[in-house]
Each structure stands twice: as C-alpha cells, then as structure tokens.
C-alpha cells in the first residue's frame, strides 16, 4: 500500500501543479486525475467512472480573476482512490458510488480553502521579493517564483496524500458500516448527477443558439438510445 500512496503523492502533486502554477494543460481535470488514482489503487475503470461524473459538474465555476472554484482535482483524487479501493473490497454498487461522489464535495471545499491559503502565503513571498528587488537583487524574482511553485507543489502533494488517504479510509471503514440496502438509499440520487454535469456545461455555453440545440440533441440521443434498447 505504501508504494500506492507514494505514487498518488507524486501524480497528485504533478496534477495540482498543472491546476494553477504551471502549464494549465488540463492534466488536473477530474477525468484524468480520477482515472490515474483508480489505476494507482487497483481499478482504473472504477476511477474513470468517477472522473466521467465529476469532470463536468464544476465547469460552471470559472477560475476568473480572484475567484477560486472548488477543488475538483481533490474531489477526483478522493473519488478515484475510494472507488478503486471499494471495488476491490466491498464492491462498488450504485449506492456506494453515489455516496462517494456526494462526499467528494466536502473534499472540493477543503481543497479550495487550501488553495486560498497558498495564495495568501504567495502574497508574502511576493512582498519579500519586491523588498529584495528594491535592495537591488534582481535574482530574487527567480527565487521568489521558485518558492511559489514549490509551495503549490508541496501543498498539492500533501492534499493528494490526505485526500487519497481519506478515500481509502471511507471505503475501508465508513461504507462497510452500512449494509447494501442502506447504501442503496443513495442510489436513487445517481441519475441526477450526470444531469447536473450537463447543466453545468450548458450554463457555460449558453447563447441564443445553444438552448434549442442542447435540448434537441438530448432528445435525439435519448430517443435513439431507448429505441436501440427496445430493438436489441
């Protein structure tokens, strides 16, 4: 198990770096992170299922200006590791899956608080850098930026460890406390989650043209799938 957590820390740290500090090449997206965490904790497909659900849900919150969206990377670390671990222990039924997705909202908010903290500490780094530059030390800019990137990376690694650990603990200790019938009470909420994701994308891309297109496509794909099922 130790090597799994070490790998989770390493990959999680890289994904968190991509989130804000470096590149923004979408390596931090829930689909990528949850699949990676699923692979690390023994079931890539289970992690991917979490990623497919979480990928779209938070898209409605844009990282614009000083606003910080919920930490969907952290939610994916938690959900991916928890789903993979649960699938190899108690089994990943629809109720457990839904419960994990809903519990990930707590992680997303904790991650947001951590993100704010890092940015406040970065403010101190920036002030110290400017004082050094005032004294004539131009190299302080490079050192300050390196400090900021390191802070983002270390925080990302710590969050990856904490959230993947929380995922494993929830799957190992919390979910088994409830029987399959009890966990099933969460399952009735599962159909709502992809619709929340679709609404999130729809609200991002809303223009005069898109409203009709969205619902027409939804109807066509729904009708096609139902017909396919009936004839199959």
């Amino acid at each position, binding site marked *: 198990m130790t090597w799994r957590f070490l790998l989770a820390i390493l990959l999680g740290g890289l994904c968190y770096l991509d989130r804000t*500090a*470096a590149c*923004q090449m*979408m390596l931090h*997206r829930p*689909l990528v992170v949850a699949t990676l965490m699923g692979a690390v904790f023994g079931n*890539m497909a289970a*992690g991917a299922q979490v*990623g497919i659900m979480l*990928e*779209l*849900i938070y898209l409605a*919150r*844009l*990282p614009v*200006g*000083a606003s910080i969206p*919920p930490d969907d990377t952290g939610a994916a670390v938690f959900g991916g590791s928890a789903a993979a671990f649960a699938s190899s222990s108690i089994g990943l039924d629809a109720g457990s899956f839904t*419960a994990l997705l*809903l519990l*990930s*909202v707590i992680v*997303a908010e904790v991650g947001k608080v951590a993100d704010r903290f890092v*940015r*406040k500490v970065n*403010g101190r780094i*920036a002030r110290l*850098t400017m004082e050094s530059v005032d004294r004539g030390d*131009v190299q302080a*800019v*490079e050192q*300050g*930026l*390196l400090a*900021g*990137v390191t802070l983002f990376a270390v925080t990302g690694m710590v969050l990856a460890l904490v959230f993947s650990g929380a995922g494993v603990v929830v799957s190992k200790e919390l979910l088994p406390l409830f029987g399959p019938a*009890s966990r099933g*009470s*969460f399952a*009735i909420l599962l*159909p709502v989650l992809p*619709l*929340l994701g*679709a609404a999130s*994308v729809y*609200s*991002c*891309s809303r223009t005069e*043209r*898109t409203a009709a*297109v969205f619902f027409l*496509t*939804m*109807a066509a*794909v*729904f*009708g096609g*799938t*139902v017909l396919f*099922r009936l004839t199959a």
Partner: protein
Amino acid sequence: MTAQALSTRSRSAVWLRQFLLQGCWNYEGMQNMGFAYAILPALRDFYANRPEEALKAVKRHLEFFNTQPAMGALILGASVRLEERVAAGEADPRAIGTFKVGLMGSLGAIGDSFFWGALRPMASVAGTLLALLHPLLGIGALLFIYNGVHLTLRRRGFTAGMEGPEGAVGWLKQAALNVRTDDRKLLAAILAGAYAGVFAARFIPQGGSAPYALGWFLLAAATVHLFTVLFRKAVSPSEILSFLLVVGVLNLWR
C-alpha cells in the same frame, strides 16, 4: 543608446517561462511575479551592463498583472518588443505599463470566455463521452482537443506579440476569437446534450413503456433546466451537491 538584440536562447527562455505565469499567483499582484520572471531573460539581454536600468525594468513588471494565462503569451511577446524599444531609447518606459494595463483586461475577458467558457467545456464533454468507450480514449481526446488549440494559440500569440504591439493587435483581429468562442460553445452544447441524453436513457428502468420513457425524458430535461436556473441565480454546484448529500443521509435514516 542602442539595446543589445534578444538572443535566441533568451527568446526560448521567455517562451518556456510563460508556462509559469501563475507560479506565484497572489491576491495583491496576481500574476506579477510570473510575468517578471518570464520577461527577465529578455531584460538581461537588453540591459546588459546597465544594472540600474535593468532594476527599473524589473520593477515595472512587478506591478499588478492579471489576464487569462494562455493570452498572457501575447502580452508577454509584445512587452519584450516594447522593452527592446525602451532600452534603445526609442520609447517611453511608461508606454509598457499603459500597454499591459490596456490589454490585460480585455484579453482576460476574451480568453476567459474562449478557454474557460467554450474550449474547456467542449473538450471535457467530448472526453467524457469517449471515456464511456475507454477511459484512455477519453483522456486522450480531452488533452488533444484542449491542448491542440491552447498551445497553438499560445505560440501564435507569442510570435505575433514579438512583432510588437501592432502585430499583437493585428493578430487579435485575424484570430477572431469571438467567432471561435461561439462555434465552440455550440459544439459544447451539442455534446452536453448528447451526454445528458445518454445518461437519462441509461437510468430508465427496464421494461418501461413509450409514455413512461417520454415522461422520464421530460423529467430529465426539466431537471437540467432547473439546475441551469439555479446556476444563473448564483447557486454553486457545491451547494447543490451538499443538498443532495443531506437528502441522501436523511434517506439513509428514514
């Protein structure tokens, strides 16, 4: 006064360093540290053997700066060219600040709308749909669709910026990002509609009749509409998920 030319090595360094524009993001100066860090190799070339002026130039770039990170490449490239002119005595140093402040807000708005409001949702929903076939296919599609456009626009923006502020403005007109934004929003809406349709059909209980399926579809469409209205009223996805979590827990103890 003549400024030394920008070496190929420094140009490459500036290009690579722009990927760390948000490396020390903070509430006071936002991307100021990242911008100063990125432009530093160019300043070292232009103000070689002129430490006092180099220091002034670095301070200029430590002032508040914030824009969409990918669009920062354009401003960075143009600022390098402006700094070269300032170092050669052909331009007023204040022109750089005016140029950056003038462009960062509008480019931020254009970039946010294009990258966060259109390209990312489109790539995400395409990735999730393909991930239903195979996770790695979905991840590949997400990264390819997003970065194909993202890295191309960064490179072209930086190159256009390096031609000077005039080149930057010309490229912006030519790039027609507003049209591209609308197109990608339309594609995102189509793909999101498909995603909603797939999942709404997936959860229909087996053996339901046609009117039952129609009722289920209408319920799903109404749910999407309700969430959209809630988002418009500034209710966040976290609040909706928290509400659902509470409902689930209450249902557990029922």
